[in-house]
Structure formats: structure tokens, C-alpha cells
């Protein structure tokens, strides 16, 4: 994904993060990119995503707005010192010691090929499902976001490579921004596969 190119919703005017307004103008229509949901996305779409309001935690990485289930995050900390690991992807920052536990840290902006927000403090968002731990460097603090079913976009926008393949369950147009709802298991798997060089 070209960080200089704003992500568009794929519908409506060609300006970034525009709300769907119906028909696209001819120029933007020619540039439209559709990412068809895979089977996993379809299954998800027939369940929780049909609810009227979904409670999520939202965070920013550069221009990306990302959502995850409200009850999934373990904690947020000021980024600790990270030890690099040789022969790993450039976006894998390394391992951090968070109160005695090792946390793999992903430079999310680098992984998704976006530019971090200038002047916004970075934090480490940690997920821990009991078996696996994952830390994502993010811009600013996560916030609770309630997205509505009516805000769901008909198709996913053009996604960074690491977010393809079922990692994004749905996209929502909320508060003048596109928010990508993450499948954390799929994200963890995609990142894990990409770490070794």
C-alpha cells in the first residue's frame, strides 16, 4: 500500500474516507478496487456483524483505523525497550520484556506500509489469549467505538498485503473514517508467518 495514497472507501466521491453517497463519479469508478470477501468473511457476516451495534476498541496506525473486539486486549503500555531478533522481517521490532513476560512486538505501521501519525505518542497494545501474546505499536490510545450495522461498507477497501486473506472481517464508515474490523486470530497468523526471513 502506497502510504502517500489515501485509502478510499471504494464508494462515493474519490476523496479519502468519504461517506457513501450513492453513485461514484466516472473517474473514481474506473479506479475502484473491490476485494471480495472470502468464505470466512461471509460466515462472520452472517453472525455478529448483522447486529445493530457492535462494541469495539478502535486504534489508529497512520491513516488506518483498526477495530478489534472490545474484550480482546490485555493492556496498553508505553513502549518498552525492544530487543531485535536477527533474520526477521524489518517490521518485526523484536521482543520486549513486559513485567517478566516476553512480548513479540510488531511495528504495525511498517507492517502495513503506512506512515505513523506525526506528533501522536506511540503505545504498545498487547493481546494475550493465554497461549499467544502479541504486541502492536500503535498511534495514540485505543478507545471504545460502537459501530452500527448501517455503517458497514458494502465492500472492503484496498488493503495492505498483511491485512488480506480474511484478516479484515468488515469495514465501517464511522465518524468520517473507514474502520477495519480485525480478525485477531487471522492477523496473528499472518504476522507470525511473515516474521521469519
Amino acid at each position, binding site marked *: 500500500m502506497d502510504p502517500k495514497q489515501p485509502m478510499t472507501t471504494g464508494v462515493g466521491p474519490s476523496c479519502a474516507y468519504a461517506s457513501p453517497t450513492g453513485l461514484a463519479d466516472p473517474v473514481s469508478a474506473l479506479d475502484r478496487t473491490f476485494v471480495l470477501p472470502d468464505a470466512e468473511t461471509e460466515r462472520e457476516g452472517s453472525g455478529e456483524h448483522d447486529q445493530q451495534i457492535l462494541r469495539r*476498541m478502535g486504534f489508529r496506525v497512520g491513516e488506518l483505523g483498526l477495530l478489534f473486539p*472490545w*474484550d480482546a*486486549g*490485555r*493492556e*496498553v*503500555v*508505553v513502549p518498552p525497550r525492544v530487543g531485535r531478533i536477527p533474520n526477521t522481517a524489518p517490521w518485526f521490532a523484536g521482543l520486549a520484556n513486559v*513485567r517478566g513476560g516476553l512480548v513479540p512486538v510488531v511495528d504495525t505501521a511498517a507492517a502495513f506500509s503506512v506512515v505513523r501519525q506525526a506528533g501522536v505518542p506511540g*503505545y504498545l497494545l498487547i493481546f494475550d489469549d493465554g497461549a499467544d501474546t502479541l504486541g502492536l505499536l500503535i498511534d495514540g*490510545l*485505543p*478507545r*471504545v467505538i460502537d459501530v452500527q450495522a448501517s455503517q458497514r461498507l458494502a465492500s472492503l477497501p484496498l488493503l495492505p498485503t498483511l491485512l488480506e486473506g480474511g484478516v479484515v472481517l468488515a469495514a465501517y464508515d464511522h465518524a468520517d473514517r473507514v474502520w477495519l474490523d480485525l480478525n485477531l486470530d487471522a492477523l496473528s497468523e499472518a504476522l507470525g508467518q511473515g516474521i521469519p526471513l
Partner: protein
Amino acid sequence: MAIEKVLVVDDSATDLQNLVGICSSAGYAVITATSGTEALDKVKSDTPDAVLLDVIMPGMNGFQACRAITSDPVTQHIPVVLVSSKGEKTDRVWGQEQGAKGYISKPFTAEQILDQLKIL
């Protein structure tokens, strides 16, 4: 809502005893738990009026326990106050986003604990 019964959750015996002493001496009925999992059980079985919840605990941490309490329709009316040695702004914000009604950093004073219980 008048707070009469308080659930104190801390894996540190010292901090637990300290909190129990503060609450008991002020006239509150106190029940205790030493883990997030035990706290979830006691919130349902003992129905406290408020929960003082440590954050850093083995297994389920205080944030996760707080989220479980505040998202369960049976227990979501019970106010949770996080009590932690994690005193960063990030922790306060994260705690608030998990549904906590208050956040007290360790080391705390008896006044801080009792003032917080009064305003719940």
C-alpha cells in the same frame, strides 16, 4: 447507591490485608479474592456493592476481570475501582475503557480508598 459490602481483590497478601483493614475499619463488610477468576466467581455468588480490583495479577489481570464484570448483564451494575501500582496515564485510560469507575495508584492512603467508595 450506598456501598455496604466491598469485594477486595489482590494477589498480594500485604496489599489485601491493608485494603481489608481500611474498609473494615470504616464499617464496610468485606469479602476477598486473590485472583481475577476468583473475583468473577465472588461477584456473582456474594453480590458485593463495589469491587476494589488490583490490576497486575497472574492469569486474568485486573483489566480483563473488570471488563468481564462490567460486560456481564448480571454484574454490570457493580462499580469497579482499579487499584494498581501501574500509574501511567495509559493505565487510567485503558481502565476507563474497560468500564472501571475509578483508578487509584499504589501506594494509596486510606482516605483515597474511602473517598472513592463514597462517591460511587
